[in-house]
């Protein structure tokens, strides 16, 4: 198996592993980009292509296809924020976010949806983002779909996804095939641990190689600690080199100076860096309105093997329960399935001892559905707030209120009904008080009574959005629709933290499309060259 990234390094790409630095390293560039995920990768390619000297800073390690051995024991500590155990302040929501070169794009499940029209229309009407209309954004999504080889998954779904499709069809609920950013995919099912065949068109195999080929420098294992500001400009960024463990600083500092800084550390880390730097925030918006698509889980047992660990993890979805409610009404939810692997499944599943062991013995026959709740539109769905711990690390407080639990109950009912319709003989929500149901009738009665509360009903998230929201005015946004910071003139935010609400779909393509637009505008502004033709 070829490893194009290692070949590129051998051919002379500039990469510094900051954990190996013994002395401070001063860096000068036209643009310093913080983060190498969906936003950082796309920005790096477009800015480097415009002839700008680009430096990309990534806190996580550089790992490439030869390293991806599909073992959870290594992938989670190596490739994820906080070993895939990042949690909200009350510990009620577990958050999966990448932390490696390529960011979450290295470990996501490849689902690639454009920002739904209703979301863009809401942003236009409620957040004054007049220029981000469906037609105006379409060419940017199209360009990134082409760049990242996004296409409808042509292979029949694995049984985990097929059960969702079958159960929904029984009930007259429309489903559709998921577009994925893959090329010559082996249909293995291990996208979440880094793609071992380079089929996934993550930033690791697309935009970052393109930027490095054009002379960009990548610095891994460097934590962006703090900006220095002078009046309304960012003068420099201090990076702290990490030890190879990725947890502790090794004592070496790197000072990065640039004409312009692009912040793309992802929601949670991007607002946290600005909070640590005491960035101007005259309207107290920074870190607020952070959204998660707080997700419910329902697990069913089937007579035949489901093998949810094998095959494209996500290939079927339903937006029926997003589409059948007003966008700002009772919260809607998107239905998808997750891949199941032993650590992810066993730690998520409720119970202990023999009860847990019994469910684990049926691991191969387990089928699981997710309901991703669309947050940030209803007046009572205001998301969470990123604050700093005493040590400067970020902590997200996300209260789950009655508006959320009302949607959660509908979602748990819907998922159980679909699973029984698909042929499950037993279904349970992932919930500490639930012991499972043997029929839809039993589930309907049981779920109606089930007490829903944090730390009783399991809630997870793999989509963090908001915290540096864009809007038309500084009174209600941190950045404008181009990602330009309202107060700091040489700072842009190019990641999911700019979304003023959740997306209502897996967010990677929303980030790619918006950042393609905004990085193109930034490249034009910094080089004095013409704006791209699509604008």
């Amino acid at each position, binding site marked *: 198996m070829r490893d194009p990234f290692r070949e590129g390094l051998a051919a002379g790409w500039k990469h510094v592993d900051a954990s190996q630095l013994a002395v401070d390293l001063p860096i000068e560039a036209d643009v310093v980009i913080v983060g190498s995920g969906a936003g950082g990768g796309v920005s790096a390619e477009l800015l480097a292509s415009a002839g700008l000297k680009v430096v990309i800073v990534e806190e996580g390690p550089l790992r490439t296809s030869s390293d991806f051995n599909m073992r959870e024991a290594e992938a989670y500590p190596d490739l994820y924020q906080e070993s895939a155990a990042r949690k909200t302040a009350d510990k009620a929501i577990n958050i999966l976010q990448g932390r490696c070169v390529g960011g979450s794009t290295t470990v996501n499940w490849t689902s690639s949806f454009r920002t739904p029209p209703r979301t863009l229309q809401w942003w236009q009407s409620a957040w004054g983002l007049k220029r981000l209309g469906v037609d105006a954004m379409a060419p940017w999504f199209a360009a990134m779909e082409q760049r990242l080889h996004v296409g409808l998954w042509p292979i029949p779904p694995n049984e985990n996804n097929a059960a969702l499709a079958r159960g929904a069809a029984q009930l007259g609920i429309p489903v559709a095939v998921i577009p994925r950013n893959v090329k010559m995919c082996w249909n293995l099912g291990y996208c979440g641990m880094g793609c071992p065949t380079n089929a996934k068109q993550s930033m690791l195999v697309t935009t970052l190689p393109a930027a490095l080929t054009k002379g960009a420098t990548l610095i891994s294992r460097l934590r962006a600690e703090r900006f220095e500001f002078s009046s309304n400009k960012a003068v420099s960024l201090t990076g702290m080199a990490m030890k190879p463990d990725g947890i502790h600083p090794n004592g070496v500092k790197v000072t990065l100076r640039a004409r312009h800084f692009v912040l793309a550390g992802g929601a949670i880390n991007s607002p946290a860096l600005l909070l640590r730097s005491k960035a101007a925030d005259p309207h107290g918006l920074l870190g607020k309105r952070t959204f998660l698509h707080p997700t419910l889980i329902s697990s069913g047992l089937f007579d035949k093997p489901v093998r949810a660990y094998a095959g494209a993890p996500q290939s079927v979805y339903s937006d029926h329960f997003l589409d059948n409610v007003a966008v700002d009404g009772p919260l809607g939810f998107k239905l998808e399935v997750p891949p199941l692997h032993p*650590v992810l499944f066993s730690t998520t599943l409720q119970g202990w001892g023999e009860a847990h062991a019994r469910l684990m013995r049926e691991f191969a026959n387990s089928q699981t559905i997710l309901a991703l709740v669309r947050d940030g539109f209803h007046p009572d769905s205001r998301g969470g707030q990123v604050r700093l711990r005493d040590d400067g690390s970020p902590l997200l407080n996300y209260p789950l209120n009655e508006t959320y639990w009302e949607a959660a109950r509908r979602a748990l009912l819907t998922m159980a009904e679909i699973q029984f319709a698909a042929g499950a003989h037993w279904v349970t929500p992932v919930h500490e008080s639930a012991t499972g149901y043997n029929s839809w009738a039993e589930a309907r009665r049981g779920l109606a009574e089930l007490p829903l509360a944090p730390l009783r009903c399991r809630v997870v998230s793999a989509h963090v959005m908001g915290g540096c929201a864009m809007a038309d005015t500084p009174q209600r946004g941190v950045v404008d629709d181009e990602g330009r910071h309202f107060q700091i003139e040489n700072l842009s935010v190019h990641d999911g933290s700019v979304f003023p609400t959740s997306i209502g779909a897996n967010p990677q393509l929303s980030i790619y499309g918006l950042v393609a637009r905004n990085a193109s505008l930034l490249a034009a502004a910094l080089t004095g060259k013409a704006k791209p033709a699509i604008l």
Partner: protein
Amino acid sequence: MTTRREFLKTGLAGGLLLNVAACARPSENGGRTVVLSALIPVMLAGALPAEGAERPELIVRTLDGVERAIGGLAPATQKEIGELFDLLAFPLTRMLAAGIWSPWPEATPAAIGNFLESWRHSRFDLLKSGYAALHDLIFGAWYARPDTWAAIGYPGPPKVE
């Protein structure tokens, strides 16, 4: 919903217990090993072989896995996990907060089971999240190991050449 009064009670009671435990701080990780050695066989009942020569060895390997997992958490989280184990290891708080009246090595599986259930269904978020941490650490360490996969019908990752 947690009421405000409950929340304050959790905060106060939980905070006091943590302070007591912190003052008494058992030696380094010594306390943690004792607690985990007692918890692991109960949490993993049904997965861990009930007898046989490999049982103690598997407990030790799970314990090592838990330690490795803790080492991969953010420093602030490692500190919280340290406090959780201090609370469980220090005799006074072990009795008050966990209801375990004998030292851990002598605690019966039934008593440990009662403790797990009482925290799991506690009115206090602090205790519920403590249970969740123990659950995730122990099951994560167990099912991370390839030797546990045959029992659940997981073939392991495919070969990629």
